[in-house]
């Protein structure tokens, strides 16, 4: 048998894994919208971290002489009803926005996935109860549910996080449960069990990693939606207490001054839209890049 033509053999082993990641990156960033989204997210995160350096003024500095001023050289976006600089408040607001997403997704993800794991793996009674409970949670409009919980628990940042966490939990539970149910039937699980792998080992080594691709997509999207949810709550005055600057509360207080300085309400909204949009675009990019069927583009 003559020498095989090595150029035509498929890539093997180590090389293959590196190029897999490279290919993933290439697909992800082949679309300009994903690049745009990533830039926005990074900007917001940097803005949050370096807020003290970037903001021209102290966001909480009240100046009664300078109330409700339209944009000027001194205050690029004007001032709000307490004379505080709007631009600084927007920059500081990104802190809340960025952290809310992370905290809420972490809480929702951990609890939700844990419950989903149990429901999916053990099925039976406990599985049904958990899933129906999630159904019940999902039957309530997320806003109403989170509103109710936040109100009952009382105000404060932490309580808001918990309320939001509970509201976002069902998706993760469902995802985990669904993945486990479908993967459970696969032969390699059977194989692992046959060689004597314990329940826990099977769950963690085989089932959990399989859920990662859709999980990453959902997390990215939820990072954005958590921002929307928190903004809705703080718009209503529930949750984060003044004078902390959050974009939602700023929209609320700006309502009365639409005729004098509409930017008070409009700009925070734009900030929200941009950041949430960014998460959506990146999430979509992730989804396309992780979709095995799109890999060969055939």
């Amino acid at each position, binding site marked *: *048998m*003559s*020498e*095989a*033509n090595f*150029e*035509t*053999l*498929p890539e093997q082993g180590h090389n293959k894994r590196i190029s897999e990641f490279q*290919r993933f990156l*290439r*697909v992800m960033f082949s679309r300009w919208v994903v690049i745009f989204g990533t830039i926005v997210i990074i900007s917001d995160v940097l803005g949050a971290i370096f807020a003290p350096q970037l903001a021209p003024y102290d966001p909480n500095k009240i100046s009664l002489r300078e109330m409700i001023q339209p944009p000027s050289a001194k205050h690029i976006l004007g001032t709000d009803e307490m004379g505080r600089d709007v631009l600084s408040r927007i920059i500081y607001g990104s802190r809340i926005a960025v952290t809310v997403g992370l905290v809420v997704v972490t809480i929702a993800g951990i609890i939700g996935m844990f419950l989903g794991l149990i429901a999916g793996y053990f099925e039976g009674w406990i599985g049904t109860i958990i899933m129906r409970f999630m159904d019940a949670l999902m039957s309530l409009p997320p806003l109403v549910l989170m509103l109710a919980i936040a109100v009952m628990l009382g105000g404060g940042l932490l309580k808001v996080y918990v309320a939001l966490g509970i509201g976002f939990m069902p998706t993760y539970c469902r995802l985990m449960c669904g993945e486990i149910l479908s993967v459970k039937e696969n032969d390699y699980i059977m194989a692992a069990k046959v060689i004597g792998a314990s329940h826990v080992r099977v769950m963690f080594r085989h089932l959990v990693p399989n859920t990662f691709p859709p999980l990453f997509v959902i997390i990215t999207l939820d990072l954005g939606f958590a921002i929307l949810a928190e903004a809705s709550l703080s718009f209503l005055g529930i949750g984060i207490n003044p004078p902390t600057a959050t974009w939602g509360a700023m929209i609320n207080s700006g309502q009365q001054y639409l005729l004098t300085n509409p930017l008070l309400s409009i700009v925070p909204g734009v900030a929200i839209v941009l950041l949430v949009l960014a998460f959506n675009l990146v999430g979509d990019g992730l989804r396309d890049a992780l979709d095995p069927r799109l*890999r*060969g*583009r*055939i």
Partner: protein
Amino acid sequence: MAHLLEVKNLQVTFDTMSGLVKAVDGVSFTIDKGEIIGLVGESGCGKSVSQMAITQLIAIPPGKIVSGEVIFEGQDLLKYHPDSNMMRDVRGGQIGMIFQEPMTSFNPVFTIGEQIMESLRLHLKLSRPAAKKRAIELLEEVGIPDASVRINHYPHQFSGGMRQRAMIAMALSCSPKLVIADEPTTALDVTTQAQVLDVMMKMVENYHNALIIVTHNLGIVARHAQRINVMYAGRIVETGPSEAVFLNPGHPYTIALLKSVPRLDENRGRQLIPISGVPPNLINMMPTCSFKPRCPMANGCHNQSSPELRPVGKNHFVSCHLDVNGEDCGTISQ
């Protein structure tokens, strides 16, 4: 006499993330009225793609029919736009297709009857009642019991074999001049395979359609086909009357294929010899013979070009530089 279908130098490529795949690289064959030919090759050799290109069913990005002619009843189909009236007339009306996956080839939300009638009403312009009657007849012809009841059933209510029979009925419903069956029995279990194949051959006999059977199963074509085309890496490497190809294969690939398949009439205990190596990557094709890496005669072959088809018998052509004894035939370089 002019051929019913003449494919000349068909080239189809696919644009992928890893590069340009030459799925079909210069395929030519003919088929006459009422003739049955087999197109044989392993997965990925381009046989399905070449057939889909005939009716322009290839997804245009990422696919592309680069060049070639598909002359059906004197007209080059490739000159027509895929959505043109001409092509739509031909599809279903003149050329019927049977696909591999009976489980997913029917639309789950419409009854089998509706889907067969759709064809009849489109091409034969039948009225609803006439189409229904004809559809029931067709189902009976393919051996589906209780046809008048089952015509109102949905695809998921049919078994795999039944669905494939219905697919055959649908493909033949408008009495097309040519039927292309792309791996018609591959997805079925062995017993059903035989039954469905019989049904298909019977129908084709009754309706005098020309038939192209695309398959990787030599057994199917051995029995029914009059001519065999063997494909490898996007090209036809051997073509000839089926007896000649089976009894006197000329191409090393065909020889190897036959050696790797058990036969009822040989001694038990003969070792089945698989073909070593892997199918070639169709992206960066070398200008040399595509089978060379796996060819048992490669050591004696010094020709660096890609071989052309040369005659080895009556109507029997092989694309190999060497003859069956390993002697160089001095083929013309490409």
